[in-house]
Protein backbone atom coordinates (compact mmCIF):
# COMPACT_ATOMS: atom_id res chain seq x y z
CA UNK A 1 0.00 0.00 0.00
CA UNK A 2 1.25 3.49 -0.92
CA UNK A 3 1.25 6.37 1.59
CA UNK A 4 -1.11 8.33 -0.70
CA UNK A 5 -3.61 5.47 -0.78
CA UNK A 6 -3.51 5.29 2.98
CA UNK A 7 -4.18 9.02 3.39
CA UNK A 8 -7.36 8.62 1.36
CA UNK A 9 -8.79 5.99 3.69
CA UNK A 10 -7.22 6.72 7.05
CA UNK A 11 -10.32 8.37 8.57
CA UNK A 12 -12.42 5.32 7.64
CA UNK A 13 -9.77 3.10 9.19
CA UNK A 14 -9.92 5.11 12.41
CA UNK A 15 -13.72 4.89 12.37
CA UNK A 16 -13.43 1.12 11.74
CA UNK A 17 -15.55 1.41 8.60
CA UNK A 18 -13.25 -0.32 6.09
CA UNK A 19 -13.74 -3.89 4.90
CA UNK A 20 -11.70 -6.34 6.98
CA UNK A 21 -9.10 -6.91 4.26
CA UNK A 22 -8.39 -3.20 3.86
CA UNK A 23 -8.29 -2.72 7.62
CA UNK A 24 -5.46 -5.25 7.69
CA UNK A 25 -3.59 -3.53 4.83
CA UNK A 26 -3.72 -0.15 6.60
CA UNK A 27 -2.64 -1.73 9.87
CA UNK A 28 0.38 -3.33 8.18
CA UNK A 29 1.37 -0.05 6.50
CA UNK A 30 1.10 1.91 9.75
CA UNK A 31 3.38 -0.61 11.45
CA UNK A 32 6.03 -0.07 8.75
CA UNK A 33 5.73 3.64 7.89
CA UNK A 34 6.50 6.00 10.77
CA UNK A 35 5.36 9.07 8.81
CA UNK A 36 1.86 7.66 8.23
CA UNK A 37 1.77 6.34 11.79
CA UNK A 38 2.45 9.85 13.09
CA UNK A 39 -0.30 11.35 10.94
CA UNK A 40 -2.68 8.60 12.08
CA UNK A 41 -1.88 9.40 15.71
CA UNK A 42 -2.47 13.13 15.14
CA UNK A 43 -5.77 12.56 13.40
CA UNK A 44 -6.93 10.16 16.10
CA UNK A 45 -6.25 12.80 18.76
CA UNK A 46 -8.01 15.54 16.80
CA UNK A 47 -11.11 13.44 16.08
CA UNK A 48 -11.08 12.43 19.75
CA UNK A 49 -12.04 16.04 20.58
CA UNK A 50 -15.51 15.23 19.27
CA UNK A 51 -16.00 12.66 22.00
CA UNK A 52 -14.81 15.06 24.70
CA UNK A 53 -17.24 17.71 23.47
CA UNK A 54 -20.20 15.38 23.09
CA UNK A 55 -21.86 16.14 26.42
CA UNK A 56 -21.52 19.75 27.53
CA UNK A 57 -22.38 20.40 31.18
CA UNK A 58 -26.10 20.98 31.78
CA UNK A 59 -26.72 24.56 32.91
CA UNK A 60 -28.98 24.40 36.01
CA UNK A 61 -30.26 27.95 35.40
CA UNK A 62 -31.36 27.23 31.85
CA UNK A 63 -35.10 27.03 32.61
CA UNK A 64 -35.08 30.04 34.95
CA UNK A 65 -33.35 32.10 32.28
CA UNK A 66 -35.74 30.85 29.62
CA UNK A 67 -38.80 31.73 31.70
CA UNK A 68 -37.42 35.19 32.49
CA UNK A 69 -36.75 35.74 28.79
CA UNK A 70 -40.32 34.79 27.92
CA UNK A 71 -41.79 37.03 30.61
CA UNK A 72 -39.65 40.05 29.71
CA UNK A 73 -39.59 39.84 25.97
CA UNK A 74 -42.76 38.15 24.88
CA UNK A 75 -45.76 39.56 26.75
CA UNK A 76 -48.15 38.29 24.07
CA UNK A 77 -46.82 34.75 24.43
CA UNK A 78 -46.87 35.00 28.20
CA UNK A 79 -50.49 36.02 27.99
CA UNK A 80 -51.39 33.02 25.88
CA UNK A 81 -49.19 30.63 27.76
CA UNK A 82 -49.04 31.42 31.45
CA UNK A 83 -52.63 32.68 31.85
CA UNK A 84 -54.75 29.64 31.00
CA UNK A 85 -53.97 28.13 34.41
CA UNK A 86 -55.53 31.16 36.10
CA UNK A 87 -58.31 31.49 33.52
CA UNK A 88 -59.29 27.86 34.03
CA UNK A 89 -59.84 28.54 37.71
CA UNK A 90 -61.43 31.97 37.37
CA UNK A 91 -63.78 31.25 34.47
CA UNK A 92 -66.12 28.82 36.33
CA UNK A 93 -66.09 31.12 39.36
CA UNK A 94 -67.12 34.07 37.20
CA UNK A 95 -69.83 32.04 35.46
CA UNK A 96 -71.23 30.82 38.77
CA UNK A 97 -71.35 34.37 40.14
CA UNK A 98 -73.15 35.56 36.97
CA UNK A 99 -75.60 32.64 37.18
CA UNK A 100 -76.44 33.27 40.82
CA UNK A 101 -76.88 37.00 40.11
CA UNK A 102 -79.16 36.16 37.15
CA UNK A 103 -81.32 33.80 39.21
CA UNK A 104 -81.51 36.32 42.04
CA UNK A 105 -82.67 39.20 39.80
CA UNK A 106 -85.09 36.83 38.06
CA UNK A 107 -86.69 35.98 41.39
CA UNK A 108 -86.75 39.65 42.36
CA UNK A 109 -88.55 40.69 39.16
CA UNK A 110 -91.02 37.79 39.17
CA UNK A 111 -92.00 38.35 42.83
CA UNK A 112 -93.55 41.88 43.29
CA UNK A 113 -92.74 43.55 46.54
CA UNK A 114 -95.58 43.91 49.19
CA UNK A 115 -95.34 47.73 48.98
CA UNK A 116 -96.18 47.63 45.27
CA UNK A 117 -99.18 45.36 45.95
CA UNK A 118 -100.54 47.78 48.52
CA UNK A 119 -100.37 50.76 46.20
CA UNK A 120 -102.10 48.83 43.40
CA UNK A 121 -104.91 47.79 45.76
CA UNK A 122 -105.28 51.35 46.99
CA UNK A 123 -105.76 52.60 43.41
CA UNK A 124 -108.36 49.91 42.78
CA UNK A 125 -110.22 50.89 45.89
CA UNK A 126 -110.24 54.54 44.83
CA UNK A 127 -111.91 53.65 41.55
CA UNK A 128 -114.38 51.37 43.31
CA UNK A 129 -115.32 54.02 45.84
CA UNK A 130 -115.82 56.51 43.01
CA UNK A 131 -118.18 54.08 41.31
CA UNK A 132 -119.93 53.50 44.60
CA UNK A 133 -120.37 57.22 44.99
CA UNK A 134 -122.03 57.32 41.56
CA UNK A 135 -124.32 54.51 42.71
CA UNK A 136 -125.24 56.32 45.82
CA UNK A 137 -126.43 59.33 43.86
CA UNK A 138 -129.91 58.34 42.83
CA UNK A 139 -130.57 58.57 39.10
CA UNK A 140 -133.96 59.91 39.83
CA UNK A 141 -132.38 63.04 41.26
CA UNK A 142 -131.12 64.02 37.81
CA UNK A 143 -134.44 63.53 36.21
CA UNK A 144 -136.19 65.52 38.86
CA UNK A 145 -134.04 68.64 38.23
Amino acid at each position, binding site marked *: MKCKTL*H*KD*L*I*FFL*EKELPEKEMELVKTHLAECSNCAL*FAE*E*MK*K*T*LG*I*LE*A*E*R*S*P*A*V*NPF*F*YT*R*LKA*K*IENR*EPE*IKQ*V*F*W*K*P*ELVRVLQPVLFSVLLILGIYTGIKIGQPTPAQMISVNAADQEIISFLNEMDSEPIEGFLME
Partner: protein
Amino acid sequence: MSETEIIRKLQQGNEQAFKELVENYQKLVVNTCFGMVHNIEDAEDIAQEVFIEVFRSIHKFRADSKLSTWLYRMSVNRSLNFIRDNKRSKWFQSFEDSVQSKNAVHENLINKNTDHPGFELENSQRAKLLHEAIDSLPQNQKVAFTLSKYEELSYQEISGVMELSVSSVESLIHRAKKNLQKKLYVCYKKRCI
Protein backbone atom coordinates in the same frame (compact mmCIF):
# COMPACT_ATOMS: atom_id res chain seq x y z
CA MET B 1 -45.40 12.31 31.90
CA SER B 2 -45.09 10.51 28.57
CA GLU B 3 -44.16 12.40 25.37
CA THR B 4 -47.78 12.40 24.12
CA GLU B 5 -49.03 13.57 27.50
CA ILE B 6 -46.46 16.39 27.60
CA ILE B 7 -47.53 17.55 24.13
CA ARG B 8 -51.24 17.34 24.96
CA LYS B 9 -50.81 19.32 28.18
CA LEU B 10 -48.51 21.78 26.43
CA GLN B 11 -51.17 22.39 23.79
CA GLN B 12 -53.56 23.20 26.67
CA GLY B 13 -51.07 25.75 27.99
CA ASN B 14 -49.78 23.81 31.01
CA GLU B 15 -46.61 25.37 32.43
CA GLN B 16 -45.48 22.24 34.27
CA ALA B 17 -45.54 20.33 30.96
CA PHE B 18 -43.33 23.00 29.40
CA LYS B 19 -40.86 22.79 32.27
CA GLU B 20 -40.70 19.04 31.93
CA LEU B 21 -40.19 19.25 28.18
CA VAL B 22 -37.29 21.68 28.66
CA GLU B 23 -35.71 19.45 31.32
CA ASN B 24 -36.05 16.35 29.13
CA TYR B 25 -34.69 17.89 25.95
CA GLN B 26 -32.33 20.65 27.12
CA LYS B 27 -29.26 18.46 26.64
CA LEU B 28 -30.29 17.32 23.17
CA VAL B 29 -30.96 20.85 21.94
CA VAL B 30 -27.91 22.51 23.55
CA ASN B 31 -25.59 19.75 22.38
CA THR B 32 -26.84 19.93 18.79
CA CYS B 33 -26.45 23.71 18.73
CA PHE B 34 -22.99 23.40 20.29
CA GLY B 35 -21.95 20.99 17.52
CA MET B 36 -22.98 23.64 15.00
CA VAL B 37 -21.59 26.82 16.62
CA HIS B 38 -18.80 25.44 18.91
CA ASN B 39 -19.52 27.91 21.70
CA ILE B 40 -21.46 26.93 24.79
CA GLU B 41 -22.91 30.39 25.52
CA ASP B 42 -24.12 30.86 21.95
CA ALA B 43 -25.44 27.29 21.94
CA GLU B 44 -27.52 27.97 25.07
CA ASP B 45 -28.88 31.21 23.63
CA ILE B 46 -29.93 29.45 20.44
CA ALA B 47 -31.41 26.57 22.47
CA GLN B 48 -33.58 29.07 24.38
CA GLU B 49 -34.89 30.42 21.08
CA VAL B 50 -35.69 26.84 20.06
CA PHE B 51 -37.78 26.29 23.19
CA ILE B 52 -39.56 29.63 22.76
CA GLU B 53 -40.44 28.49 19.25
CA VAL B 54 -41.69 25.17 20.66
CA PHE B 55 -44.51 26.69 22.63
CA ARG B 56 -45.21 29.36 20.07
CA SER B 57 -45.93 26.65 17.53
CA ILE B 58 -46.82 23.58 19.63
CA HIS B 59 -50.32 23.68 18.12
CA LYS B 60 -48.73 23.02 14.72
CA PHE B 61 -47.00 19.89 15.98
CA ARG B 62 -48.46 16.73 14.47
CA ALA B 63 -48.71 13.66 16.68
CA ASP B 64 -47.43 11.38 13.90
CA SER B 65 -43.93 12.88 13.95
CA LYS B 66 -41.36 12.45 16.70
CA LEU B 67 -40.78 15.34 19.06
CA SER B 68 -37.01 14.80 18.99
CA THR B 69 -36.94 14.95 15.17
CA TRP B 70 -38.77 18.27 15.32
CA LEU B 71 -36.37 19.60 18.00
CA TYR B 72 -33.28 18.52 16.05
CA ARG B 73 -34.59 20.24 12.95
CA MET B 74 -35.32 23.49 14.81
CA SER B 75 -31.90 23.38 16.54
CA VAL B 76 -30.10 22.93 13.21
CA ASN B 77 -32.09 25.64 11.44
CA ARG B 78 -31.72 28.16 14.27
CA SER B 79 -27.96 27.45 14.43
CA LEU B 80 -27.58 27.92 10.68
CA ASN B 81 -29.43 31.26 10.95
CA PHE B 82 -27.17 32.27 13.82
CA ILE B 83 -24.02 31.42 11.82
CA ARG B 84 -25.33 33.35 8.81
CA ASP B 85 -26.18 36.43 10.90
CA ASN B 86 -22.89 36.18 12.78
CA LYS B 87 -20.90 36.16 9.56
CA ARG B 88 -22.55 39.42 8.58
CA SER B 89 -21.80 41.15 11.85
CA LYS B 90 -18.27 39.76 12.18
CA TRP B 91 -16.90 42.80 10.40
CA PHE B 92 -17.93 44.94 13.34
CA GLN B 93 -16.72 42.63 16.06
CA SER B 94 -13.94 44.04 18.18
CA PHE B 95 -10.72 42.17 18.85
CA GLU B 96 -11.67 41.78 22.50
CA ASP B 97 -14.92 40.06 21.61
CA SER B 98 -13.20 37.57 19.37
CA VAL B 99 -10.68 36.68 22.07
CA GLN B 100 -13.52 36.18 24.55
CA SER B 101 -15.50 33.94 22.24
CA LYS B 102 -12.44 31.82 21.48
CA ASN B 103 -11.87 31.36 25.18
CA ALA B 104 -15.49 30.35 25.62
CA VAL B 105 -15.18 27.72 22.89
CA HIS B 106 -12.54 25.82 24.77
CA GLU B 107 -13.74 26.51 28.27
CA ASN B 108 -15.51 23.18 28.30
CA LEU B 109 -12.44 21.20 27.34
CA ILE B 110 -10.12 23.09 29.63
CA ASN B 111 -12.42 22.54 32.60
CA LYS B 112 -12.14 18.83 32.07
CA ASN B 113 -8.33 18.82 32.21
CA THR B 114 -7.33 21.49 34.68
CA ASP B 115 -4.40 19.52 36.06
CA HIS B 116 -2.53 19.32 32.70
CA PRO B 117 -1.74 22.82 31.40
CA GLY B 118 0.26 21.54 28.41
CA PHE B 119 -2.49 19.14 27.48
CA GLU B 120 -4.99 21.99 27.78
CA LEU B 121 -3.21 24.19 25.29
CA GLU B 122 -2.67 21.37 22.81
CA ASN B 123 -6.29 20.31 23.10
CA SER B 124 -7.59 23.81 22.70
CA GLN B 125 -5.52 24.22 19.51
CA ARG B 126 -6.74 20.86 18.31
CA ALA B 127 -10.36 21.80 19.01
CA LYS B 128 -9.92 25.05 17.09
CA LEU B 129 -8.45 23.17 14.13
CA LEU B 130 -11.26 20.61 14.15
CA HIS B 131 -13.99 23.27 14.43
CA GLU B 132 -12.49 25.21 11.54
CA ALA B 133 -12.34 22.06 9.46
CA ILE B 134 -15.98 21.20 10.27
CA ASP B 135 -17.10 24.79 9.58
CA SER B 136 -15.46 24.77 6.17
CA LEU B 137 -17.60 21.82 5.04
CA PRO B 138 -20.55 22.44 2.70
CA GLN B 139 -23.66 23.08 4.83
CA ASN B 140 -25.44 19.74 4.37
CA GLN B 141 -22.24 17.79 4.99
CA LYS B 142 -21.68 19.73 8.18
CA VAL B 143 -25.25 19.16 9.43
CA ALA B 144 -25.18 15.42 8.70
CA PHE B 145 -21.71 15.01 10.23
CA THR B 146 -22.63 17.01 13.36
CA LEU B 147 -25.82 15.02 13.99
CA SER B 148 -23.89 11.80 13.50
CA LYS B 149 -20.93 12.77 15.69
CA TYR B 150 -22.35 14.98 18.43
CA GLU B 151 -25.71 13.28 18.83
CA GLU B 152 -24.72 9.84 17.52
CA LEU B 153 -27.86 9.66 15.40
CA SER B 154 -28.29 6.81 12.93
CA TYR B 155 -28.42 7.54 9.17
CA GLN B 156 -32.14 6.74 9.36
CA GLU B 157 -32.71 9.35 12.11
CA ILE B 158 -30.59 11.96 10.29
CA SER B 159 -32.60 11.37 7.12
CA GLY B 160 -35.76 12.15 9.15
CA VAL B 161 -34.31 15.39 10.52
CA MET B 162 -32.86 16.58 7.20
CA GLU B 163 -35.76 15.26 5.09
CA LEU B 164 -33.37 13.43 2.77
CA SER B 165 -33.05 9.79 1.73
CA VAL B 166 -30.88 7.49 3.83
CA SER B 167 -28.48 7.01 0.90
CA SER B 168 -28.08 10.80 0.54
CA VAL B 169 -27.21 11.03 4.23
CA GLU B 170 -24.70 8.20 3.87
CA SER B 171 -23.08 9.95 0.94
CA LEU B 172 -23.01 13.34 2.76
CA ILE B 173 -21.24 11.83 5.78
CA HIS B 174 -18.79 9.94 3.57
CA ARG B 175 -17.86 13.12 1.73
CA ALA B 176 -17.69 15.08 4.97
CA LYS B 177 -15.14 12.62 6.38
CA LYS B 178 -13.08 12.71 3.18
CA ASN B 179 -13.03 16.52 3.27
CA LEU B 180 -12.09 16.60 6.95
CA GLN B 181 -9.28 14.15 6.35
CA LYS B 182 -7.96 16.33 3.53
CA LYS B 183 -7.97 19.44 5.71
CA LEU B 184 -6.37 17.67 8.64
CA TYR B 185 -3.65 16.31 6.36
CA VAL B 186 -2.84 19.77 4.98
CA CYS B 187 -2.55 20.99 8.55
CA TYR B 188 -0.36 18.05 9.54
CA LYS B 189 2.00 18.76 6.62
CA LYS B 190 2.20 22.43 7.65
CA ARG B 191 2.68 21.39 11.30
CA CYS B 192 -0.09 23.76 12.31
CA ILE B 193 -0.35 22.28 15.81
